């Protein structure tokens, strides 16, 4: 299999309402078979996450967040330049999740050259397989943004 130069990583849980956002975005982009782009759904396990972007030029992480903003708000961070802010410290097991994986990779010089984080403020993380209306709308915006930035040959803006 040819090594993809771009990896889109959708993080989340498909059975916890808006937490499925990242998985759904990755699946929809994956169904488009974009050249040089690999799309994966991920549970956020740190060792596997760091492994998933080794040797890759560009990574886009997409995840639902709970930072107190209005539901559906889309936030962008250029992780090559900055850590995720404190309020984006996502739910994780043993206090070791996505932000820690990113910072660990930075300390070990294992971050890809380009790595962007797209966070969508969730409204409901209860058990269920439906996105809330606000997040469903944001999902389409995120997909359009990523497609646009890929066509321009750059990561999502930060």
């Amino acid at each position, binding site marked *: 299999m040819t090594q993809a130069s771009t990896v889109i990583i959708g993080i989340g849980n498909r059975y916890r309402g808006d937490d499925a956002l990242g998985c759904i975005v990755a699946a929809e982009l994956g169904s488009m078979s974009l050249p040089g782009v690999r799309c994966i759904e991920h549970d956020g396990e740190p060792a596997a996450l760091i492994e998933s972007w080794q040797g890759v030029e560009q990574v886009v992480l997409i995840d639902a967040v709970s930072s107190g903003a209005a539901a559906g708000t889309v936030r962008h961070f250029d992780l090559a330049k900055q850590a995720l802010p404190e309020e984006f410290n996502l739910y994780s*097991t043993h206090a070791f999740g996505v932000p820690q994986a990113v910072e660990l990779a930075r300390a070990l010089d294992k971050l890809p050259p380009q790595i962007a984080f797209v966070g969508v403020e969730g409204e409901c993380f209860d058990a269920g397989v439906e996105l809330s209306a606000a997040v469903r709308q944001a999902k389409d915006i995120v997909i359009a943004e990523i497609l646009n930035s890929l066509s321009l040959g750059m990561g999502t803006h930060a």
Partner: protein
Amino acid sequence: MSTSHGGTRTIKVDYLARVEGEGALYLKVRGNVLEDVKLKIFEPPRFFESLLRGRDFREAPDITSRICGICPVAYQMSAIHAMEDACGVRVDGALRQLRRLLYCGEWISSHTLHIYMLHAPDFLGYASAVEMAKDHPAIVERGLALKKVGNDIMNLLGGREIHPINAKVGGFYRAPARSELSDLRETLLRARELAAETVKWTGTLEFPNFEQDYTFVALRHGDEYPMNEGRIVSNKGLDIAASEYDDHFEEQHVAYTNALHCVMKPEGTCYHVGPMARYALNYDQLPHPIQDAALAAGIGRVCNNPFQSIIVRAVEVLYAVDEALRVIDSYAPPEQSSITVVPKAATGYAATEAPRGLLYHRYAIDQGGLITDANIVPPTSQNQKMIEDDLRCFVPTCMHKPDDEIQYLAEQAIRNYDPCISCATHFLKLEVDRR
């Protein structure tokens, strides 16, 4: 945070770091005497036992595995064995070996996370693994590589590394072909080196000089280092079947914590479950090279210093890698991936060895296979009173130190147990919507 008032010092840790879930510690010191210790778990309870009532017996493994993202296999295994016990079924041969292989994956993954990411920073003087990685990148990379091997096993056998979905009452939904295990074998051969280095490295760490006369409780099988089955034994004479657990142990409500304290009957004494207990009670079941590695790392046949639990965990990782290789080398795929299990009205009992220690499940089911009663006792509930006892004995040995140093050491003493507060409370962020 520490406060001082009228000769009384209070040290409070409002939020324990590098443990799973939300817990706090309260130490009250009068003069130079430690007057009170409270390990508070303020996660609300999750009521999994109630949730299970009325569900089909085959659903218990996947429902209970959601209690913990770190040790889901343990919950699956205890639930599966308890249901098979209720239905009078025994699963053997290749299916039993595959269960053992899956458990090896969880031990490797869970122990390695704790050794490298959560516990090692304590010994090397860092606030987190990220800080530690800046100065010790090779050590942290070794931990990540080793953890990934555990993930690989869980992925292959369980379908995914967190909350695997392939284990079922009676066996597996799908058993792997022999050829599917060949890549894993190569990975495990490399991992054996990493695991052996880990044992050596943990032996070089500096440990506080502190020992306790523990009552160790663990499974003992007699033919193998225990994972899925065995009798529940202690170093103080206990030797019972899982079905007798409730006669010898009881859970108690304690006002300041949401997790039940489990104690030994009749005196209500605390006891120790986990790697140190397994090791002390099953040292003779470890292969000789692994026994030698443990002794060379500085622990005896019994380790009574809880701070050295990091060495014991490393020894168990080495064993789990070795055992996974043994299972793969002797693997012949089963004719069927599972056997049929027909429910009957009965109560089933099982205890298996989760990474953090003994995990007991008891279920009553009716003739149609619906669950009528459930009880789950996770390792952290069993260790909670033991952790307090460690603190009660350990903190006075460092009373001359400044409060921030006492706090640091006390937190380290708690992390000796790799406590999983989510498991202890079956934690869930609870929202009450009243109208």
